[in-house]
C-alpha cells in the first residue's frame, strides 16, 4: 500500500492511524489502522462512501483532531505528540483548508476573510493587505474585495475560501469536497485553480471527493477508503495529463 518512491520527500506519513469515537457504549471506528505516504507536491484524492473516514483522515492531517493511536507526520512533524497550541501553529502555517460549505465569516468582506489567517499569524497590516490582494488576484476576485460572502456566487465564495487557504503560503492544501456545493462547470473552475497551485507552487494537495471522474481528471493518485480502512491506492498520472491537455 505504499506508492511513494524511495528517496522522495514525504509531505504526509501515517502508520496504523486510528481514530475511534465513543457514542454511549458503542465505539465508532472512523479510522481503523490507516497507513499511507504522500509525497511533497503530490495531488492525492481520497475517495469513498459517506462514513468511510475520508473527512476524519483529512481532519487529522489538518491537526483539527487528535488520533486515538498510531503515527501521523505532516511536514516531518508528529502531530500526535503536539499540544493544542502547536496544532494551531501547524494549521496556521503548514496546511490550508477548503471546505464544501465554504466556511467564510459572513460579517466580513472578501478581503477581510482572506486576511484573517494572517491576523492569527501576526502579519503586519500593510503586508497583510498586499498578500490578500495578491491572493485575490490569483483566484480572480480582485473586483470583489469589499463584498460580503452573501453577495457572492457559490464559485466566488469557494474561490475566496481558496485564496484564504493560500494566503499564508502553506505547503499542503486540504480540500474537503470543494466542489460539493457547486455546479459542474464552476466545480471544474475551482479544481483547475487547485491543480494550477499544485503545479505552479509545488503545493501538496489532498482532496476528499465523492466524484470519481473529477478525482481521475486531476489527482495523481487515488486512495480509496471503506469503513475507516484504506482499501486501494491507484496511480492516476496519465488521466491527469489528458485533463490538463
Amino acid at each position, binding site marked *: 500500500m505504499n506508492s511513494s518512491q524511495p528517496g522522495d520527500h514525504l509531505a504526509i506519513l501515517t502508520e496504523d492511524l486510528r481514530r475511534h469515537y465513543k457514542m454511549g457504549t458503542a465505539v465508532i471506528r472512523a479510522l481503523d489502522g490507516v497507513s499511507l505516504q504522500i509525497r511533497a507536491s503530490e495531488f492525492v484524492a481520497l475517495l469513498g462512501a459517506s462514513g468511510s473516514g475520508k473527512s476524519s483522515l483529512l481532519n487529522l492531517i489538518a491537526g483539527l483532531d487528535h488520533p486515538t493511536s498510531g503515527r501521523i507526520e505532516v511536514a516531518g512533524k508528529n502531530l500526535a505528540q503536539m499540544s493544542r497550541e502547536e496544532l494551531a501553529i501547524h494549521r*496556521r502555517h503548514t496546511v490550508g483548508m477548503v471546505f464544501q460549505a465554504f466556511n467564510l*465569516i459572513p460579517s466580513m468582506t472578501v478581503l477581510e476573510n482572506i486576511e484573517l*489567517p494572517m491576523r*492569527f499569524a501576526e502579519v503586519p497590516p500593510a503586508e497583510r493587505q498586499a498578500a490578500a490582494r495578491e491572493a485575490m488576484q490569483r483566484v480572480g476576485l480582485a473586483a470583489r474585495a469589499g463584498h460580503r460572502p452573501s453577495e457572492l456566487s457559490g464559485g466566488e465564495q469557494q474561490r475566496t475560501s481558496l485564496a484564504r487557504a493560500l494566503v499564508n503560503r502553506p505547503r499542503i492544501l486540504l480540500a474537503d469536497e470543494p466542489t460539493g456545493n457547486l455546479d459542474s462547470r464552476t466545480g471544474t473552475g475551482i479544481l483547475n485553480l487547485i491543480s494550477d497551485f499544485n503545479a505552479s507552487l509545488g503545493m501538496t494537495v489532498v482532496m476528499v471527493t465523492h466524484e470519481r471522474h473529477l478525482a481521475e481528471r486531476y489527482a495523481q493518485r487515488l486512495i480509496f477508503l471503506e469503513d475507516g480502512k484504506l482499501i486501494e491506492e491507484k496511480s492516476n498520472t496519465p488521466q491527469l495529463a489528458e485533463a490538463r491537455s
Partner: protein
Amino acid sequence: MKAPDLIDLAVRNLRESVLRNSLTTLGITVGVASLVAMLALGVGLQQMANRRLAKSGLFDTVVVTSRRDFRSYNREERTTGAGAAQSRPLDEQVRAQFEKLPNVLEATPDIRFITELRYDGKPHLTMVSGVPQSARNNDAFDNMQGRFFGGDMADEVILQKEFADELITGREQPDSKVQVTAEQLQGLLGKGISLHYAERSVPDRNAPSESAPATAPPNNSEPAALSSFSVIRRSRQLRIVGITDQDPEGIRGSARGRVFLPLKLLQDLKVMLPSEIRENTRSFSNQQTYLTISVRVKNTSQIQGVQEAIKKMGFNTFSIVDATRSLRRFFAVLDLFLGIFGSLALAVASLGIVNTLVMAILERRREIGIMKAIGASDGDVKKLFFVEAGVMGFFGGVAGVLLGWSIGKLINWGTNIYLVRQELPPETIWAVPWWLVAGAVVFAVVISLCSGLYPAARAARLDPVQALRYE
C-alpha cells in the same frame, strides 16, 4: 493575535448584535452609575465635613500646653520627652521658637479669661478670648452680622450670639418665650461695651516699684524686685462690631469664649491670667506666660511633623486631627457600604455579560470552528471573548460615570433648592473626583473581564471539528 487586531475583531463582533450588546452595555452603565452615585455621595459628604473642619481653623492647628500645667492629653507622652518638672512655661520666647519651626504659619497665645463686661450699666460675667487677624477666614465669621475687627489694635469686640441675646434680654439662660429678632441684634452693632480686667504690672528690676505690691510670698533666694508683682484694676471702652451665630472655638468645650477681642489688643492690655499667678508664684518669672499656644501649620498633612517637633521640645500637643481619626474611620466605613450597595447593580449587570457572551458562543459556534481551522489558537479565541467583555465593560463604565455624574448634579441641584427654601446656605454634597472616574471605569472593565472568564474558557475549549459541523 496582536492587541489592535483583537480589539478590531471584538468591536466588529459586538456590532453584529448591536441591540443585545447595547442592552448588556446599558446594564453595566446603570451598575456603574449606581456605584458612582453612591460613592460620590460618600466622598461629597466627607469633603463637606473636611471643608467645614478645615475652615473652622481647627484642622491646621496644634494646641500646645506646658507639661508643668497639664500631664498629657495622650498617655504615651508621659514616657517621652521632658517631665513635668523640666518642662518650660509657655512664654513669648517659646512662642517665637514655635514660629521658627518648619511648616509653621504662626503661633498665637490663647488669651482667655473670665471677667466682667458692662453694657447699658449692667454687669455681665463671661469668658473673653483673643482672636488673631488670621481667624478672619474662619467660617464662624463668614455669615456673621456686622464685620470682623478693623485692625490688630482696634478697640472692637465681636459677640457670640448667645451673649448678644443676654445683653438684649438681660437673662443669662436662653428663654424660649423671649425671641430676639435680627433687628434687635443689628441694633447692638456700633454700641459701646466696657471691659473690666486686672492688669499685671511687674516692677522694674533696677527700681523697685513704689506702688503697693500684691502679696507674693517672700523668698530668700530671689531679689525683692522679682518676688513681687502688682495687679491693677482697669477698664477699657470697646465697640461692638460683629455678632456671630457660629461657635469659632468648638474645640474649647466649656472654655469657649463668648466675647472676642483682637489678640494683639488683649496682649497689649497685659491682662493678669490665672496661669500667670501660678507661674509667678512658682518661678518668679517676669515674662508673660500662657496656658496654651495655638500653632497653625501651612497644611493639614504637616500637622504630625510639627506635633513631633514640639513634643521633642518638651511640651504636650493636641490637634483636632487626632480627634478626627474616628471621623475618617466613619467615612471609610460609610464609603465601603455605599460602594457595596452601588456594586450590587454592577454584579447583576455582570450576569448580563455572562449571558450575552454564552449566547454569542452558541451563535458563533461555527465561526469559532472556522477561526480554529485557519489557525486561531485556543488562546486567540479566549482573548477575543475576553476583549469583547472588556470593550462592553469599558463603554459601559464610561457611560456609567457620565450617567452617575449627571444624576449627582441633578440631586445636588435639587438639594440646594430645598436648602435655599429652608433658608440654609447651599452646599456641595456631591463630588466625583478623578480617582473615582478612573476607578469606576477600571472596576467596570475588571468586573466585565471576570464575567468573560467562563464564556471565554468555554469558547476556547470548543472542538473545531464539532464546531464546523454545527449548523
